[in-house]
């Protein structure tokens, strides 16, 4: 099987930079990370310097996603050797146990971390993920709510909670979570647009009005947001007479968008 560097004609620096980009963007393209990362570690490990540790972590998590326990274990062992008492590495051990569906052992791992350091957010979030994986959504929601009472600023957690609520069809509470996110990120068009979608799904005259406003707001923040444009189109023509926006205006916007994109 041809190596990544051969297939794409890249050197090890480009591979390392690509991995960094994926790390920063928080992409979950695990198969690609495993391909690139495995080769980078095995062939160019010595040239990476201190970068290698964070790459080990990234590749290990991607390997767990791809069911590559061999690779995950290798990375984990290297990290354990280098950082023997690290909570961050312990969390990775716990994640490996989660991937093997040994949830009770994983929970013990995380409890041990929390006993040592009760403010360790990563371990708490992993415990909530275990509940989610086991299908215990009500408990996951409860634990996540408790977590957010302590760590109000954790945006990832608010977003996760909104998703959990949406899956339980509790749109009112999902909207609340998204409101928190919009307050702290007023320029993020994606939160506006998702909030509008939740309001639309909730239904009812007031909610549809709000939905239209937030689709419009999302579009104002980013005029290429197709979902917001479509949402506005779906709602155009509904609502009170004074607020009816012209369906034609939205259609024209849609057309111009399609032309510029194609």
């Amino acid at each position, binding site marked *: 099987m041809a190596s990544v560097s051969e297939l794409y004609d890249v050197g090890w620096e480009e591979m390392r930079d690509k991995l960094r980009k994926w790390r920063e963007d928080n992409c979950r393209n695990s198969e690609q990370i495993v391909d690139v990362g495995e080769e980078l570690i095995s062939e160019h490990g010595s040239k990476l310097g201190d970068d290698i540790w964070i790459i080990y972590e990234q590749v290990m998590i991607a390997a767990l996603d791809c069911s590559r326990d061999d690779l995950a274990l290798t990375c984990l062992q290297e990290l354990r050797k280098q950082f023997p008492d690290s909570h961050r590495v312990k969390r990775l051990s716990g994640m490996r146990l989660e991937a093997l569906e040994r949830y009770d052992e994983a929970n013990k791992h995380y409890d041990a971390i929390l006993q040592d350091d009760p403010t360790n957010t990563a371990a708490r979030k992993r415990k909530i993920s275990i509940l989610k994986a086991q299908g215990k959504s009500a408990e996951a929601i409860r634990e996540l709510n408790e977590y957010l009472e302590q760590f109000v600023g954790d945006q990832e957690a608010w977003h996760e909670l909104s998703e959990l609520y949406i899956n339980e069809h509790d749109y009112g509470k999902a909207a609340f979570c998204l409101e928190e996110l919009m307050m702290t990120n007023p320029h993020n068009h994606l939160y506006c647009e998702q909030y509008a979608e939740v309001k639309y799904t909730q239904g009812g005259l007031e909610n549809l009005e709000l939905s239209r406003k937030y689709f419009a707001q999302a579009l104002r923040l980013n005029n290429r947001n197709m*979902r917001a444009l479509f*949402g506005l189109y779906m709602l155009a023509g509904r609502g009170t007479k004074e607020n009816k926006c012209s369906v034609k205006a939205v259609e024209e916007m849609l057309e111009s*968008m399609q032309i510029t994109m194609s």
Partner: protein
Amino acid sequence: MGNHCSVCSATNQTCVPLYSSNTSEIPLGREALHWVDPHVQHPLQLLLFVLGIKSVGDRSVHCNETTTLSKALLEADAVHCPVRGEKKAYCKMLLHAAKYPHCAVNGLLVAEKVKEKKKDSHSAPILCVDCVPLFHGTLALAPMLEVALTLIDTWCKENRYVIAGYYQANERTKDFRPNQVAEKVAARISENFSEAAIVMVDNSRLTMSCFEPIVLIYDHHENKWKSRDVNTDCFEDWLEAQKITSALLEGRSYENLIDFDNHLDDLRNDWTNPVINKSVLDLC
């Protein structure tokens, strides 16, 4: 009734003609189901035949009590699959699930539009020829789903298709029950197409080789969605479907699969997936 049984030459009220193929062996009980005349569409119709209202063929089956046989028929709800899958549909469904292993995915199944049903409503099995992958991640939000249904409906009308079903693969591996979203979408589809089915992918059995069909098909009976036995007969050509799906999974073709979410991210992405369709044809 007085049907003359060609096997026992006796006039036996419980001995009714059941199938038309000329076979030397006459299976009994559940095996009889495999010999059923293909015109019989639904277990209840078969029951009518068994009760002797209409004779189908010249072979008969012995049964001591009609009730035993009819009970067996009602238990075996897959006498024959009204909705069957073609390789392109099955393939793209699995590719979609494989592309987003960490998310729930869903999509629509489309079938070719048949002309008006004949008077005695013995229509041919509905063949799902294609599928349109819809979303991944959060499936329970309405606006984009409505947009998708409208756009896909228009596309169907242009291509003489009809939306015939809905598929979903849940987020968790061991979860294969249809949830509220599935039931709601399927109810919506049933408004336009009475025999809409829900197809759930059994994630725990998803492998590269796909030796057996890993879907569960649910039909609407008496206000509930009941699952039906799935076997290779539910597919137009199972061996081909298995071969092609396996080849595409190994070749990581799912990286090129476009779902409606991808289309909304960038309108240039074509959710009809001409590239994958061509790959399927090339492998046939």
